[in-house]
């Protein structure tokens, strides 16, 4: 009696830590702590389960479990620590797959224990299917991310085929449940079918869209876990699973409109590779493709930079965004960011155009730096914000003897760690979110190198 209660109690705590953890993950300041909290809860739950298990257990089994956990920990930890930043998304995808697999396996094992009990069987099957899909899907995603799989394979009426398969699987699942059959064969059949579907599902999607896919699969795995939880009437699994399921879904959508494309077009690969938006905090340059980003995003990027250089151009004048930029500057400085303006001698349409603009907002004269002096600074600059400038940061002046501006000295923004280019503003004055309001106004940005 005693320990049950305490186990349940531990689960309770665990579930709460998940919620808190996830919540805190939503805010830059608390994100890290949030992660730890959730991790703590998890550990608690795991050990609780092992040591407060009622009923006799062979030491062998204990040792097995122990072994599995130890090995898993070592590998997981090691990999996670070693792999370098740009590979992060691959990892996430990998681990997600593991989770899915684990869920699927549970299904495989438990199946024949519950034959007859429709409800449980249904649960098991569901968990199995989803788990498998998310497993195989993640693996493909992984392959695509690290480039093993390059071009999206897609043949006519691909989607139709896919959907048919999916329906088949589901139908089959229902059949198994209803029939109450105990055939292992069926079980493995559906298992493999699900795996196959996972592959087919991800195959046609462009590499740039993978993050979205992963996030989607992620919430799948969540569901799988929830089903397992339901099976055992195990609260922590249930809650945890559902939580990830719902949060994951929302997240998926959030990601989609961060790269403003509808989920559908992602899944059914409506866009081709080229223009495919790519997920924000992923720095690895996508060959030639353009990264869109959101204001709040760019904002955070700048908030956490140590040094930001603003490159104003004619567009700033056209948009009359000088005040806005100035406020942004003040904001960043409050946050302890060093801000400078790089003034190109011919930025704008008349000599000293930028000076006139910025003087209007009382930008401190010392912050305006001439091209010669600032060019050396770019390399130790975290973020460059190019606002409505173009020629003056156009590398063509260096590289392309053909170009009309060839030979014109330019600002070497490429040297900076990251670059944000702000082009033609939508309707300025439109109120955005959070402290990025004004910044946001004129901002629909292109991530990557200057060029339009």
């Amino acid at each position, binding site marked *: 009696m005693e320990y049950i209660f305490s186990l349940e109690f531990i689960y309770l705590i665990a579930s709460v830590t998940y919620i808190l953890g*996830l919540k805190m993950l939503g805010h830059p300041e608390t994100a890290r702590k949030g992660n730890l909290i959730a991790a703590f809860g998890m550990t608690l739950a795991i050990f609780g389960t092992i040591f407060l298990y009622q009923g006799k257990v062979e030491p062998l089994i204990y040792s097995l479990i122990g072994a599995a956990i130890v090995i898993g920990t070592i590998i997981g930890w090691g990999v996670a620590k070693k792999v370098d930043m740009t590979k992060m998304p691959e990892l996430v995808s990998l681990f997600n797959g593991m989770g899915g697999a684990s869920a699927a396996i549970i299904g495989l094992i438990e199946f024949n224990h519950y034959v007859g009990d429709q409800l449980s069987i249904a649960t098991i099957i569901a968990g199995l299917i989803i788990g498998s899909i998310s497993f195989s899907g993640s693996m493909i995603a992984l392959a695509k991310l690290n480039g093993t799989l390059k071009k999206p394979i897609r043949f006519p009426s691909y989607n139709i085929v896919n959907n048919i398969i999916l329906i088949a699987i589901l139908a089959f699942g229902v059949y198994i449940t209803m029939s109450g059959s105990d055939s292992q064969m069926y079980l493995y059949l559906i298992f493999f079918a699900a795996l196959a579907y996972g592959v087919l599902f991800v195959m046609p999607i462009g590499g740039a869209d993978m993050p979205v896919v992963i996030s989607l699969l992620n919430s799948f795995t969540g569901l799988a876990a929830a089903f397992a939880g339901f099976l055992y009437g195990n609260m922590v699994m249930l809650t945890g699973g559902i939580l990830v399921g719902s949060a994951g879904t929302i997240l998926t959508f959030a990601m989609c409109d961060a790269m403003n494309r509808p989920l559908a077009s992602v899944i059914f690969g409506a866009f081709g590779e080229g223009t495919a938006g790519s997920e924000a905090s992923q720095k690895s340059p996508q060959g030639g493709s353009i990264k869109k980003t959101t204001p709040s995003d760019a904002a955070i990027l700048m908030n956490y930079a140590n040094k930001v250089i603003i490159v104003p151009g004619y567009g700033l004048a056209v948009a009359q965004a000088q005040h806005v930029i100035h406020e942004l500057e003040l904001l960043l400085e409050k946050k302890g960011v060093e801000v400078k303006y790089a003034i190109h001698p011919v930025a704008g349409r008349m000599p000293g155009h930028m000076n006139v603009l910025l003087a209007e907002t009382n930008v401190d004269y010392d912050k305006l730096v001439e091209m010669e002096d600032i060019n050396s600074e770019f390399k130790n600059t975290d973020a460059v914000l190019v606002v409505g400038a173009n020629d003056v940061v156009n590398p063509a002046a260096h590289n392309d003897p053909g170009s009309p501006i060839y030979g014109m000295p330019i600002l070497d923004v490429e040297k900076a760690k990251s670059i944000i280019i702000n082009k033609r503003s939508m309707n300025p004055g439109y109120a955005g979110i959070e402290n990025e309001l004004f910044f946001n106004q004129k901002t629909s940005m292109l991530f990557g190198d200057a060029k339009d």
Partner: protein
Amino acid sequence: MDVLIEFISNHLQMIYIVILMIFVGVEVIGNVPAVLHTPLMSGANAIHGVVIIGAILVMLGTSPDNILALSLGFVAVLLGTLNVVGGFVVTDRMLEMFKKKK
């Protein structure tokens, strides 16, 4: 139909929990800045590692002579651990970029 009805009225509270959990999930994500998407995803990913508990339960439940189940279970636990540990560690690493400056 009845099955469904019965099911619902039997698991009423479960259903409440599920629904509420969904709400919480949605609310909690609210509107997160895009930079946090990846860490968040990865964090969530780690959390659904709870399946490991299922895996553990399986093993605890199986008789030591059922080799298949055992080995499968073993794998399950292993993978689950990977998911959990790896997930949290990766997330943490991602989040290092958010360390506040002095």
